[in-house]
């Protein structure tokens, strides 16, 4: 599934990497939900490279393609006073430009 054409930059993250979702403003067409911004998670899968939805949304070809990751988050880190089990999780598909390595942003870690 992954596109290994030489002109494509390699993926920045690998499975198991700890990341935090950027706390930035949404793009005009945004695929990153608000409730995940600023939350720490872990990469569980590298899904592949996809055309940029922000550009596709305006009738453009959506290039360069973006790496898309499957990221797992703990529910208790997302919701204040979460009542469920500590092991409860949310899995979201997120594009690379929304993710930052946790070590660069340790102040954001809960």
């Amino acid at each position, binding site marked *: 599934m992954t596109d290994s054409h030489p002109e494509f930059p390699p993926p920045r993250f690998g499975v198991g990497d700890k990341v935090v979702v950027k706390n930035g403003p949404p793009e005009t067409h*945004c695929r990153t939900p*608000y409730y995940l911004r600023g939350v720490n998670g872990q990469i569980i899968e590298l899904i592949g490279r996809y055309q940029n939805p922000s550009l596709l*949304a305006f009738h453009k070809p959506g290039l360069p393609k973006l790496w898309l990751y499957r990221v797992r988050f703990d529910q208790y880190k997302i919701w204040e006073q979460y009542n469920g089990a500590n092991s409860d999780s949310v899995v979201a598909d997120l594009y690379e430009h929304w993710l930052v390595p946790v070590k660069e942003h340790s102040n954001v870690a809960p």
Partner: protein
Amino acid sequence: MQRKVNDVGGLPGEHIDSVDHDATFFEKRIDAMLMLLISPKIKAFSIDALRRTIEENTLDDYTKRGYYEKWLYAIRHLLVEQQILSNEEIDQRITTIMQTKG
């Protein structure tokens, strides 16, 4: 603005009716129209463009309009944006149909 109108995950909301119901004729027609418009042969616009247009709803419209109603308004907006139909042509056709129906 940090949060778009469609991005409601985690917000308190009204009770959600989770009982299944059959799609109405209106819903099926809108669905069919969209599937044809985004099909590789026709490619009037992309599903991403449809989502972007739906996200451009005002909070009031986003709340008031139903799921397929949002699709319908977005389809109309995109057909005009892509210069496939003009607003005048659409309005004229609506008028004609309304008159035929009496």
